């Protein structure tokens, strides 16, 4: 077997290896490095690349990767798993979406791929990561959360030809009911879109909420769904669970709050909306009703702001448009 090396994680044969990939330097000159896990099976097969915490406060994905590896039997695995459970490590430490060292350009790592060697911190991080991803990955799954514990949806690049077809089959094997075949002109700079443009079938999973807003039961559920994708890809044996028809969308709409204040949501993730459905209630500082937030679109709730407070411009609701069962 050829040597598999991602940063300091090195695997000569089968088994599991751990190490770090350097993605930049800290302000004190020490290396900024992200954890890497490698798992290689006894039989040949594809390389599935997993990463979590592209946004630092979306920790559910790290716990999913960790559990998958704790339960991974490489003797029964065909192919290789490369996993980077905590991609945006400095943001993770600061318990926020973006790196605290990004004071200038915003720094959304999932808009910075494929990155550049001489860009901002986040662009340099993206470059260090994507170079390895492009060299090794046959498939990519990117684990995200939205805001609340009840978030459950997925999106795949609706690319022409084989890449789109294989991405879709991963989404069906994963099997979240709410699924977006993502138009190729959205989410530019996401690892998913960049990988798809480079011929790598991809999937983004959105499961759970920010910070501690996810449960151990959800982690187990996502791990089992990942194993089902691995069965679909022929990486582990066993019957592939059929999840039945999914609800596809034409696109999504981010709806920003045009009013700030204390906020109490009135809808849950997965709920159907009409134009004008009450999304939540605003209150002033004295507890008096200060208006309702109404849905500007029909569709299905992908994400909703949990309150209890929000400022103008925060994401109020994320809506899957034109739901149809397929």
């Amino acid at each position: 077997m050829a040597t598999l090396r991602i940063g300091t994680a090195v695997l000569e044969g089968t088994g599991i290896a751990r190490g770090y990939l350097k993605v930049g330097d800290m302000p004190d000159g020490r290396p900024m490095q992200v954890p890497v896990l490698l798992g290689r099976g006894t039989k040949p097969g594809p390389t599935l690349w997993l990463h979590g915490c592209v946004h630092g406060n979306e920790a559910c994905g790290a716990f999913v990767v960790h559990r998958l590896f704790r339960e991974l039997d490489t003797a029964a695995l065909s192919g290789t798993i490369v996993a980077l459970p905590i991609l945006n490590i400095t943001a993770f430490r600061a318990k926020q979406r973006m790196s605290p060292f990004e004071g200038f350009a915003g720094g959304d790592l999932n808009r910075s791929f494929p990155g550049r060697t001489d860009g901002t911190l986040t662009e340099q991080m993206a470059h260090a990561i994507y170079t390895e991803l492009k060299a090794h990955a046959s498939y990519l799954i990117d684990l995200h959360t939205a805001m609340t514990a009840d978030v459950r949806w997925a999106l795949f690049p609706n690319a022409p030809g084989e890449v789109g077809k294989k991405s879709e089959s991963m989404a069906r094997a994963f099997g979240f009911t709410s699924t977006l075949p993502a138009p190729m002109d959205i989410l530019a700079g996401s690892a998913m879109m960049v990988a798809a443009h480079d011929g790598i079938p991809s999937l983004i999973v959105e499961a759970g909420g920010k910070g501690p807003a996810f449960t151990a039961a959800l982690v187990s559920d996502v791990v089992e769904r990942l194993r089902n994708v691995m069965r679909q890809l022929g990486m582990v044996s066993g019957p592939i669970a059929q999840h039945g028809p999914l609800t596809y969308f034409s696109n999504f709409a981010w709806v920003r709050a045009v009013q700030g204040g204390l906020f109490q949501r009135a809808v849950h993730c997965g709920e159907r909306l009409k134009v004008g459905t009450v999304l939540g209630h605003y209150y002033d500082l004295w507890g008096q009703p200060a208006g309702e937030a109404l849905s500007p679109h029909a569709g299905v709730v992908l994400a909703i702001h949990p309150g209890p407070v929000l400022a103008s411009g925060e994401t109020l609701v994320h809506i899957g448009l034109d739901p149809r069962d397929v």
Partner: protein
Amino acid sequence: MITATTVIRVGTAEAAGVGVTRGELRVGDAPDGEPVTIPVAIARGAGQGPVLWLHGCVHGDEYCGAFIIHELLRTLDTGRLTGVVVALPMLNITASQRGQRMSPFATFGYGDLNRCFPGAADGAFTDQMAHAIYGGLRQYADYFIDFHTALTPDTRWALFANAPGDVGRRSEGMARAFGLKSTLPAPMDILGGSAMIAAARNGIPSLIVEMGGIGPAFERETVLEGAERLRNVMRHLGMLAEKPTEHGPLTYFSNFAWVNATRGGLFEQAVQCGQRVDKGTLVGRYIGAHGDTLEEVKSPHAGIVLAIHPGPAMGTGDVLVHIGLDPRDT
């Protein structure tokens, strides 16, 4: 003593007669020179009676208390109220705006508002806030309840000022009427600088309620429950006419122990609030960046879990678990 002709003034809120008055209290200045003001609502009843003073969001990210106070205000009929409710639902407003415990303007000192009472007119930002707030509290309050949260949605406990004599007895009466099972008669030498202890020293019976978790980590049901328990305290104080509900025996503690994390890492909690722990009970696990278990954390004390860190990640020194010691049913 408040008489029928007394005008109650807290900031711009002036209550001269029956009804609800809203206004703002200036507690300092922002770095751009604009005033930092906090909301005040005064609900004055038709009958003469005590003044109940309420605080929420002393720590900015403990929003559940603001929602409990708001729920009370929305459902209060001043025509049937005896006495006055003065409510400051979002005390540490600049911290609340930022979703954090302490004010972003508390750049130098420690900045924990609940360690700064009675405050100082020429102190740090938070000392000056405390001073501006405490003046009205001391002038008007007959009873005081301060709403906090801990870390997780299942947090439910209370503590009252175990002061000598009448102040302690009346504080305990409020705690029993509020009726959360886990209750600490707080020794008067802890929580120095809290509004509760400062008020008790000034003869004002006081209670701290801990319900729900930080940020969005609280349920609507907890808000409704907190408001109903608060109404029960008001029944007990004679401010509402109905007979108070008897909650039965409570579990009292001798004190509490804050246990800080002696290492950092990803963290999974293994106990829930209200759970009994022995010395050595597993309370959680530290996990490394690669998913390996770094350490299983054991409780250093026997008692009842008052608060537990929910994870998913913590640094050295974070509050790991908060334990009520020597539980006994009374």
